[in-house]
């Protein structure tokens, strides 16, 4: 199965899988437990998609992205979204250079490879739009000049499901631009003990410790891996299964507004990433099914009845995934 690697660049499929495995292991050095979250984040890297991380404060969202940045190299920026953050604080602006008496472009923190947007829903819609436009178009316009963002450009935005007062919820059209919405839950007891031990042993203060994370990937490697994932073998029956899942969600009981065609594209891209991260040279229905909740949960709206009952999109997706027949012929 080396042929794919030969066509894609310097890495073979086995090498790409090994590098992704090493990347996951390296992130897991800093983020104890949360294996599913780490896997989904790596899948997003491979699929070149942006991630919306949702979780309560203190579950390791920021640490995860910092560890990922440390393990993959490239330029990393972090923006803390606040109500007074302006679009130019994100994208950059033109300033008058008094020496040369000319306007000079001052690039904002968005010019990086991995951007962490902390608490994205704290900033007003105008600032959110500036970021989300850059995510979609992979370029920023300052003073009429279009400045492309160097690939790979990935955004990991976090938001907090509680304390919604004074926040600006992302509109559905903008949420759709995130490839995955990943839930970061509390670790289990065993993982929490290990995490507490590691975070307090010989550590002064409560800084996020990523000192044990070494770089195992370069941006060139990542681009090569992304190309390999994009050229993985995918049978028509798998495509049919992905389309069927998304189409069924549109008519499913309890779903008011279903996911659009962009969701199908995202599902297939994520499944390719998952197959490669699992060490497979081809995509199976398992890859589609594993990635479906994180691809679809933010792209559908439940009916009022279910919302009153306190159901979450994941509850409905669980039924949907069990009800749609998997390909067997």
């Amino acid at each position, binding site marked *: 199965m080396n042929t794919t690697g030969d066509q894609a660049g310097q890495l073979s499929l086995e090498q790409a899988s090994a590098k992704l495995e090493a990347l996951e292991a390296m992130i897991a050095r800093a983020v104890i437990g949360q294996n599913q979250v780490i896997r989904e984040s790596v899948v997003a890297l491979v699929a070149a998609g942006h991630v919306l991380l949702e979780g309560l404060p203190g579950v390791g969202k920021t640490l995860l992205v910092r560890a990922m940045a440390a393990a993959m190299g490239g330029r990393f920026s972090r923006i803390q979204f606040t109500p007074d953050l302006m679009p130019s604080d994100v994208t950059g602006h033109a300033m008058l250079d008094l020496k040369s008496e000319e306007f000079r472009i001052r690039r904002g923190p968005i010019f990086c490879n991995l951007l962490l947007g902390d608490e994205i829903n704290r900033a007003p819609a105008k600032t959110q739009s500036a970021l989300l436009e850059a995510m979609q178009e992979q370029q920023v316009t300052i003073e009429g000049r279009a400045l492309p963002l160097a690939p790979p450009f990935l955004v990991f935005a976090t938001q907090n499901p509680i304390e919604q007062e004074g926040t600006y919820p992302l509109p559905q059209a903008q949420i759709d631009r995130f490839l995955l919405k990943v839930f970061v839950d509390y670790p289990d007891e065993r993982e929490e003990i290990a995490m507490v031990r590691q975070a307090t042993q010989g550590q002064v203060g409560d800084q996020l410790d990523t000192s044990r994370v070494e770089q195992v990937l370069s941006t060139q490697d990542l681009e090569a891996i992304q190309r390999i994932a994009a050229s993985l*073998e*995918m*049978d028509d*029956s*798998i495509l*049919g299964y992905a389309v*069927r899942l998304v*189409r*069924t969600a549109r*008519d*499913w*009981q*309890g779903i*008011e507004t279903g996911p659009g065609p962009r969701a199908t594209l995202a599902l297939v891209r994520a499944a390719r990433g998952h197959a490669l991260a699992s060490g497979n*040279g*081809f*995509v*199976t*229905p*398992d890859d*589609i*099914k594993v990635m479906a909740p994180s691809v679809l949960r933010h792209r559908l709206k439940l009916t*009022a*009845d279910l919302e*009153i*009952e306190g159901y979450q999109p994941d509850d409905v997706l669980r039924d949907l*995934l*069990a*009800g*749609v*027949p*998997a*390909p*067997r*012929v």
Partner: protein
Amino acid sequence: MMELDRATAPLRQRDAWEGQDLGFALARAWFLPLWLLWWLSVLPVGVACLFLTGFRPDLWLLALWWLKPIYEGPLLIWASRALFGERLGWSDLKTLFRAGVPRRLLPYLLWRRIGMRRSFLMPLTLLEGLQGRAARARRQVMSNGSGVTFWLTLVCYHFEIILWSSLLLGVFFLVPQELPRLDLIAAVTDDASWAYWVSVLAYVFAFSIVAPFYVCAGFALYLSRRTELEAWDLELAFKAARATLAEAARGEAQRPKGGRVGGAATLVLMAGVALLASAGVEADPRSDPDQAKALIAEVLAEPDFGSVKEIDVWVPIESAEDEADPLKLPEGAKPVLLLLASSLKWILLGLAVAGLVLLLVRILRDRRRLGWSLGRARRPTRAPPTESVPMVEARLPADIAQAVRACLRDGDRRGALSLLYRASLAHLQFMGVEVPEGATEGECLRLAARTLSQAQMGPLRQVIRAWQGFAYAHCVPNDAFLESLIDAWAQWAAGGQEPA
């Protein structure tokens, strides 16, 4: 017999305040249909009252206010059906009005109109249909603990006033200065002024907003009381327990009797817990009413209450000439202006009617997209059947091994491996492993590994790998491997446990 398990809202024991919360949540969920239904009910009554009151806005508002129970009946009927998943639509309007405005509603327009428990008692009248002594006894039983309805009514009145005054102030502050200003004093005192009409219409609009919440809150209180009296929550819990036990009994029919004894013991235990929970109800401590009256009288005798103060103010006296014609119009201009005003009035009326019709047309056309309708709720579909979806239950040949070999002879390797895979899933089900329709290859393996030993799984792992490799990676297995796989499968299916 009421089918409680069809209820779209959770039925459990609630105190009165929680009951009201449920009512408000229901009203929010069904607001648009209820609001439209309210307007449909009020429009004919409003038009009739307009003529009957001789276009006097104060009397008209009083009549509309007094006849509120007439519009609330259909809302209640609609909500009671919607609770059990039935959405009445345009075609059911006749039924709605027939059920919602019966003759039994008459007391609600007379002595009960000024009572504070209307929203709670109306479900008793309209939904249970009892009369005479039985109705009185039922009201007595149900009314215990319904004191919160007083606060519901009071709060709703206040919300109507707040909404009305907000609307008036909104108009007052937002209309540009060049246009005629709304006279706030005239809006509440001068019934001959147009401002008074604006005020009256604002009040009717406030009625329409509050009515769904008032009706649903009363209905939810009624539901809470019935749940408490008739233990609907326990009934639902027992139904769920019975369904669970029946399912377990079907699945574990081969187990010894101990399991059935355990199931019965679970039921007895649940009943015991329920009885213990209900035994914790305590008597309602009440204070002595005579003591309370004396205390109230004492408080009211304080100088802060009931003192009267007389204040004299100067009032300007305007000349009669100024009042008669404040604009001092030239001769001949008045008829022209009157004609202009009359024409403008009819043009505006025409535009308003056309706008209303257009709005109705848009609403009817877009009601599906807007996500609400008075029509029947869209039937939810689960997995829509598609032609390309193969089922594991698709008919399998009697002799699998022979059929697989036949496929191989015809060069149909995909068909052969697919058949072998589907037959393996069917065999798993035969061995007691439940394989859902949506289970993927990996899930099938995990389900089998959870229930069966390694030896019992036979060549399943190899079959699935071969199928995945061929179907998804297009890797063609050689004939010798396939032949050995078929042999191992045949041995497994025949009851042997030798892996390939």
